[in-house]
């Protein structure tokens, strides 16, 4: 890792710090999962190690499934650090509010298709927010940050994954959350078969009911 030159902190997230750096003459992202003082060091190490190992595996699987993700160049488990391709582009979070309704619809359908591909191949992203999606200049949408992901085809987990997408839209893009989520599901339906989609939608409703998510029960 000695070859990393001029690391510049570009984002201090809760889970990791991202640095833009020069690595063998290439512009890369160095993702460092720094120790968290609030957690017991034992637990902290477990969590950071697990996520550092699993994230690149899932990103690789996603790529095979046809979902663009940054290429991983190097993983250093001891320091919970990985070096990956730098994707030049804009976060979907920044785009959604600044494009026409039509384009927004278009973007969301595309996102839905990509989520569909992930799920179809047994991959759960685990943190589907519009900050974790980057569109490059060619219009390709990259998914990043698979640290909370997992491999499963379980209906429940798929439902939660999409439910999180819905929640992220509601908390950040509340003005058009509903139309966006509808478009995401439209894209999702183009990839997965009708029965699976119906089951997933039912599951999302069940998850909402289970929590404190519905406004009012009419009988009350």
């Amino acid at each position: 890792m000695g070859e990393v030159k001029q690391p510049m902190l570009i984002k201090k997230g809760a889970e990791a710090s991202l640095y833009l750096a020069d690595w063998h003459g290439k512009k890369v992202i160095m993702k460092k999962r720094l120790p968290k003082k609030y957690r017991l060091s034992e637990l902290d190490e477990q969590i950071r190690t697990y996520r550092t190992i699993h994230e690149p595996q899932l990103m690789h699987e996603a790529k095979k499934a046809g979902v663009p993700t940054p290429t991983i160049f190097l993983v250093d488990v001891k320091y919970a650090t990985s070096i990956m391709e730098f994707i030049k582009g804009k976060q979907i979070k920044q785009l959604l509010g600044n494009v026409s309704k039509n384009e927004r619809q278009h973007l969301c359908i595309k996102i839905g298709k990509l989520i569909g591909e992930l799920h179809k191949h047994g991959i759960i992203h685990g943190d589907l927010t519009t900050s974790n999606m980057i569109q490059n200049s060619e219009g390709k949408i990259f998914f990043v940050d698979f640290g909370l992901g997992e491999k499963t085809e379980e209906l429940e987990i798929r439902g939660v994954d999409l439910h999180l997408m819905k929640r992220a839209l509601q908390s950040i893009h509340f003005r058009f959350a509903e139309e966006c989520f509808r478009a995401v599901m439209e894209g999702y339906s183009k990839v997965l078969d009708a029965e699976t989609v119906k089951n997933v939608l039912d599951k999302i409703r069940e998850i909402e009911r289970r929590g404190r998510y519905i406004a009012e029960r009419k009988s009350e």
Partner: protein
Amino acid sequence: MLKDNKMKQKKANECYCLGIESTADDFSVGISTFEGEILANIISAYMPPEGGIHPREAARHHAEVASKVLEEAFEKAGIRPQDLSIVAFAQGPGLGPCLRTGATVARALASFLNVPLVGVNHCVAHIEIGKLKTGAEDPVTLYVSGGNTIVSAFDSGRYRVFGETLDIALGNCLDVFAREAGLHQQVGEPFGAVVEKLAAKGKRLISLPYTVKGMDMSFSGLLTAAVNMLKKGENKLEDICYSLQETAFSMVTEVTERALAHTEKREVLLTGGVAANKRLQSMIGAIAEEHDAEFCVVPSEFAIDNGAMIAWAGVLVYTHGVVTPVEKSFVRLRWRLEEVEVLWVK
């Protein structure tokens, strides 16, 4: 009734709001001035003889203690019922029978005194009393109690929910575990405090499910795993309590930190019954420091369910032009935090 000489000298034009809280196991009456001075905050907790809260039994308790708690509140505040300008009540979210009991008392009182009735959202009230008591202005709030686990922050007119539990609340997880372990609580001592004491003696971390999904959390798997561990009897109870606390608190702290990193707010507010836990305080304090934010903990009396918070939130709602006509004062069991228009925050 009170003797006249014990009466607080009512300042000219001073306005009072009485707030009734009865969303779960506590029945509480608080009185606040329109300036935010809390004059009374009387809390009567229902203690189930065994098991968890049975909504109907808790509601029966509320009905039984209501008049006594009201009387005590007036006495403590040194005002008379006819001095009230408005009556506020927790309209939701919460347990149906409990909510209805509080609402009935509030409706009766408001009608009798012929003053406006104001329905208040319980979660909003927790945030507002926290801001009032700690001086926080625009915090990321972690609200952890027996019924709720919510990370929220203000944005565009509402308190947006950034993360929450997908199943049971953190406080509920600790309570059920304590009951399964056959632990006993003293009068007025929450189960969480019993677990905290035992956890302080634990040393060995046992691996338990750590479930963070995006910004949301799940505690039911953690609870099941901890209870199973208990039944196996291979580990010391102290170590299980320790591991349960460390795992659950690390989860809520991680989510709170993500909200803090995302919103870039300058304050973190910790409230709800579980806020009294010293270990949780130190964890949330650590992330506040990490992000150069001020760490605010709501004093225990105002962090648990209490009437004062309903009274104060009632003042905010009423002075921004909202009242709840009696015919529209039905309780709202699943009234979400982000449905409330927060008119008083710019």
